[in-house]
């Protein structure tokens, strides 16, 4: 491994790889520790120099790094300078300058949002037909299952209740439409579940989560399903993109695509793992 490689952390996110070129090997290792996986081998789809910037003032930290973004040429500014940078889709190279506060406390999860944008850029450069969605994902012998819901609907709870299986992630997962069957991938991005595993599985079904008095699987109409899914889909905004109102229509398109790819049902559950019996009764046999 060259000295240059030691300063790099490569994140494999489904079919794409993002390289972060850090100021030091130590920082690259700390990133690998944060994401809970070693740097991915192979050539990245995009490469970003990562600069951590010291600052005296304490800025406001927004919840979303998408809406507060301005773009000029290849350069962008997010949240009044919380993150600045540039990205050239042709060279697939860029730079992120990040205020130090985003590396501390709970704020790395805000910083991850700019990496979501890097993933979207990587999808584009790699020609990948994929989406990311706020969700829990579990891989079983019967395939992969995506569990979707807004904050508070129980994504992390179902992850905890699925410890007998491979929990890929309880925060952000990836659906790759490039192949048949459609693939479900975990991502390195951090939720609350600590024991996530790297992995992929053929996507069998999507469940829209709701707390209930008993475990129940129920059909859900297309409009309601697509509405719920679209609200959880990671905006397809790349580093080079400004935020535009059309993005929500694109999210609707992606939600519709997901809805038409696999069965989508509502899963009402109580805080015990018995809902897996329902799921396997319904989806127990892998189709030919």
């Amino acid at each position: 491994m060259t000295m240059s490689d030691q300063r790099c952390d490569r994140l494999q996110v489904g079919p794409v790889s993002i390289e972060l070129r850090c100021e030091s090997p130590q920082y690259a290792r700390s990133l690998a520790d944060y994401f809970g996986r070693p740097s991915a081998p192979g050539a990245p789809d995009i490469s970003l120099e990562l600069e951590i910037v010291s600052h005296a003032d304490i800025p406001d930290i927004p919840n979303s790094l998408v809406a507060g973004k301005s773009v000029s040429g290849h350069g962008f500014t997010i949240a009044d300078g919380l993150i600045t940078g540039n990205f050239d889709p042709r060279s697939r190279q860029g730079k992120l300058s990040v205020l130090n506060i985003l590396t501390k406390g709970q704020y790395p999860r805000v910083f991850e949002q700019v990496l979501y944008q890097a993933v979207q850029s990587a999808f584009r450069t790699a020609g990948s037909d994929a989406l990311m969605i706020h969700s829990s994902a579990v891989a079983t012998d019967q395939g992969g299952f995506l569990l979707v819901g807004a904050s508070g609907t129980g994504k992390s709870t179902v992850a905890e209740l699925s410890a007998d299986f491979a929990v890929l992630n309880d925060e952000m997962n990836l659906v790759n439409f490039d192949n048949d069957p459609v693939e479900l991938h975990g991502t390195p991005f951090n939720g609350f579940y600590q024991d996530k595993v790297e992995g992929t599985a053929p996507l069998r079904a999507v469940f829209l989560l709701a707390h209930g008095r008993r475990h129940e699987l129920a059909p859900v109409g297309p409009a309601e399903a697509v509405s719920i899914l679209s609200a959880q889909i990671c905006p397809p905004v790349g580093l080079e993109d400004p935020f535009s109102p059309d993005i929500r229509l694109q999210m609707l398109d992606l939600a519709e695509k997901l809805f038409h790819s696999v069965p989508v049902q509502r899963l009402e559950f109580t805080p015990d793992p018995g809902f897996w019996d329902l799921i396997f009764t319904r989806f127990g046999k892998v189709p030919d």
Partner: protein
Amino acid sequence: MITMDSIPVPADGFSVRKLGEETIILAQEGESIHSLDEVGTFFWETIDGKRSLGEILPLICAEYDADEEIIRADLLDFIADLAEKGILNIAG
């Protein structure tokens, strides 16, 4: 107050998408998104910005085999809900 003489008018600033027999109404700004099932979609498609609720009611009654008073109440609830969400403006 919404009455049967009221005319519901779709508000600006929303995108409407049909999915099979159902409908999604998406705010062009903000995060509002609203789904209509098959019945709600039929109700929605009777709204042309010119018909009063009194003119819409018989259209729905012709489609659905239910008591007119029940349909009237459902229609008023439907319109009130969409008006509250800003998806419909009420004229007259």
